[in-house]
């Protein structure tokens, strides 16, 4: 599942395979994480993991670690 989060990021932000994602990384640290990238990320997460995110959950997606934590929580339910 964790690898899938990285894959979702790479696809949404159009990152090279060699780009290393780390949990503390936020908007400024991940190339392409602008508003369109953020939208693509949400779409990617919802389709890849079969989850639905509400406004407060999307607001909280402000770091790689936050995305991992949310996906882990939503997929456990």
């Amino acid at each position, binding site marked *: 599942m964790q690898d899938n989060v990285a894959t979702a990021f790479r696809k949404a932000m*159009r990152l090279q395979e060699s780009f290393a994602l780390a949990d503390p990384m936020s908007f400024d640290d991940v*190339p*392409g994480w602008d508003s369109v990238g*953020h939208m693509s990320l949400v779409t990617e997460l919802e389709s890849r993991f079969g989850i639905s995110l509400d406004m407060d959950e999307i607001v909280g997606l402000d770091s790689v670690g936050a995305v991992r934590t949310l996906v882990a929580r939503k997929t456990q339910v």
Partner: protein
Amino acid sequence: MLPEKLKSETDQPIEPLVATLFGHAEAFPDRLAVRTPAGAVAYSTFVRRIRTTAAKIRRALSNRGERVLLCGPNSPELAVAYFAVHAAGGVAVLLDADIPTAGARWIAEDAEARLALCARELDLPFPVANLAAWCITEEGEQLAAPQCALADPADLIYTSGTTARKKGVLLSHANLAHAALNINAFLGTCGDDLECMPLPLSHSFGLGRLRCMAQVGHTLLLQTGLRNPALVLKQLLAARATGLALVPAGLDLILRMTKDRLGDAREHLRYLEIGSAALRPETKRKVLDLLPHTRICHHYGLTEASRAAFIEYHADRDRMASIGRPSPNVEMAVRDEQGGDLPDGQEGEIVVHGGMVMQQYWKQPELTRDVLRGGWLRTGDRGYRDADGYYYLTGRHGDLVNVGGRKVNPEEVEQVLNGHPAVVESACAGISDPQGITGECLKACLVLRSEVRDEQLIDWLRSRVEEYKIPRIWQRVDQIAKTASGKIQRHLL
């Protein structure tokens, strides 16, 4: 119900906006000028910081009218710096917060700038001061009064042109004050308003909102962009904001990420200003349904002529395809190629006239003469006027691509792509955004000498151009379609 508009504070003589701002600090010192999620700055403090920063800038400049670069994300300090440059008699040149160094150096050289205040390190051939360090203090010498007059140049704003070379649009203090007056008159902004402003101050739309605040004396809830669109709405709802400014892409993003939660603002949001690009018809209908009491105001304008026209969608539900009618104090017309006025219903070039029309293109007198005729600005946009005075756009001149309200010249991106070792030749053009967010986006066609992945080319571009300029669709081709004279046929891409 929505609060009534109390009293318009725009009925005042035209003066440099920074002078009006100084007056606000006397008239209502405790009112908040700028709020951020991290804190708030009252008008008294805001103006004291402007006076202190202006004294420092004044000492650093040799003459009035010298250009000062400003670079940083939205912050109270950037707003202070902007007005401090004006107060010091300088000309403000705002750069995108993420502008690549090469782009900043080109602008610095073209503008013949003498000083820069930046939130990040930029390697420029003149002093670069730390924006926050210069603009947050209230201690030290303070400039007593603004050192600028209405006719003086105030802003030099670089925009993408129809050639690879960017155009510097020179605006006077009178231009800025007239534009703010017209906008405030249409929106009905008053001193009690609290406005959410996520748009970058480095662009005309966002900067225009700051100027309107300086004139009317309301409060800006300054946000750091639309990267997290749901956060913009959450802060708007928490603050019970009465105003909001958004580009269509931002509005679409908020609607898609938060479902119908924008409707939660219906009891306090008095106005929504939209601009810089067309709004999708389904988005218009959705916003009208969600915000039945809010003035939904869409502007048409250019950096060269800020907010030339407005439409309010509730009032003109049956004309939602129109760009509206001329803004207060603005004239518009449709002309033929010889400059003759065309009758209603006939298509031609839209021209505008008013106090907000720019002074000139910086150091480009021929281009200036070409677009400015007797005080009328040729917009390059084609359209017509109906019998009731409403204007409709039918096309745009040139190859510029409008990506979420930001103009991109395909040539600039092609030049960078052509520098990649794997690329023989490239051609870019605007296409409809397949995600339905930014209206248009860039498509790149490539003739390659060796294999290369899209992500490698994106990586190459990321260090050389801004993110929104990066193509979203990539295609490998054997050759690029060109005219006999060698010009790329973008419509065939």
